[in-house]
């Protein structure tokens, strides 16, 4: 999480026991989750007001940092996750599946960029922008779960529409599509 430390450093020293329990409960839920858990879902599971979730996440993050843990709570892909911090990448890299996004080809990344900014979009529309066939790039992106089909466009031939996935947001460390860097150029 990119929250700066000035906020977390000023937490009250004595937190209520229930707060600590909720923090631990949050940790437990995130520990067993293999995908981002939306704040609303967390609020339901912990039986707290949705507004408290970001506070609990911040407190848990603070506690993890204080205890010199490798984990951090992050808001990514439309929800919260527990993940290892970047400085531990070299230790865990050999234990995990190769991260596909780190090895995507130029055409695949360019195609992914077009889809990310213009979704939902058809293959024809992507090809009109890139000026080349994008079939293999699209297949690669689907294989890596970075994009998925999003219904069909109501136009001639009803072509398939594509959109990015939660996995895309997680892989690119984005909370939501609004976190995408602004597209360059005057018409952006």
């Amino acid at each position, binding site marked *: 999480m990119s929250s700066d430390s000035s906020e977390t450093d000023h937490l009250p020293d004595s937190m209520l026991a229930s707060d600590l329990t909720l923090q631990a409960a949050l940790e437990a839920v995130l520990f067993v989750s*293999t995908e981002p858990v939306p704040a609303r879902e967390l609020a339901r599971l912990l039986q707290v007001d949705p507004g408290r979730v970001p506070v609990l996440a911040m407190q848990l993050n603070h506690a993890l940092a204080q205890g010199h843990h490798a984990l951090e709570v992050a808001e990514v892909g439309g929800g919260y996750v527990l993940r290892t911090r970047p400085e531990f990448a070299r230790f865990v890299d050999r234990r995990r599946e190769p991260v596909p*996004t780190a090895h995507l080809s130029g055409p695949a990344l*360019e195609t992914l*960029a*077009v889809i990310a900014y213009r979704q939902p979009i058809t293959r024809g529309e992507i090809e009109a922008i*890139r000026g*080349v066939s994008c079939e293999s790039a699209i297949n690669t992106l689907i294989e890596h779960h970075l994009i998925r089909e999003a219904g069909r466009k109501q136009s001639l031939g009803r072509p398939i529409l594509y959109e990015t996935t939660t996995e895309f947001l*997680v892989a690119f460390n984005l909370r939501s599509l609004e976190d995408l860097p602004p597209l360059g150029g005057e018409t952006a």
Partner: protein
Amino acid sequence: MMLTTAKLQVRLETFEGPLDLLLQLIRAQKIDIYDIPIAQITDQYLAYLTAVEEMDLEIASEFLVMAATLLDIKARMLFPRIGDKGQAEDDAAGDPRQELSRRLAEYERYSEAGRLFRALALAGSQYGYRSGRPEAPPARFLAPGQNAALLALALRPFKSRLADSPPAELTPERPTILSQIKSWLRELRRRGGHGRFFEVIGQGRPRRYLIAAFLALLELVHQGRLTVVQSPRGDDILIAPGPGWRVRLRHKQGSVGQ
């Protein structure tokens, strides 16, 4: 200011497509996208295609389409079309280069975004997440105290609805070996590389599908991605990862700029 062949050779494989090539030619000379010296750029573009041809490489059709577009623009700039009323039509339609400039500018934005994405992906790959897709929830069986008669009762409304609905129109599926190779890899990746033939592709598939799936499996074994075992009794074929399991799928389109 022609690009030398040696310079072209180095970059031959690096273009993403005709727009990318044009953009590089324009950038190399610090030309404004909205004021392209079309004759000069067309010559350079064609020189590039000739160089590619001389190296016996296949030129992707997109590059040829762009060559035609450039020549068309060049011609229109030399000889503006004369309309019925005698005035040049292109004056009304605007600069013939306009559409190309617009496409180049748009492409440039996404091309830059693509490069930015590489940095984002690299930064994002430094975080470690819980892996493994959650296992499918266990199938729900009848709860104690319920029985098949209750189940049949529950199904009744659905059955009557089925009878009312018009027969669905089905389009025949035409599986290709390539598509089957991809679906084998996809399905097996989900299963950690192991599986049984019929368990993966399902029972009761059409014969055409079975043949394509089987040929695709043989191809994957040939490529070393998978190994297969079958007992002499003719049981289901057991599939396991081969030495090349982790090798990325090669795409067969060997054309320039892909």
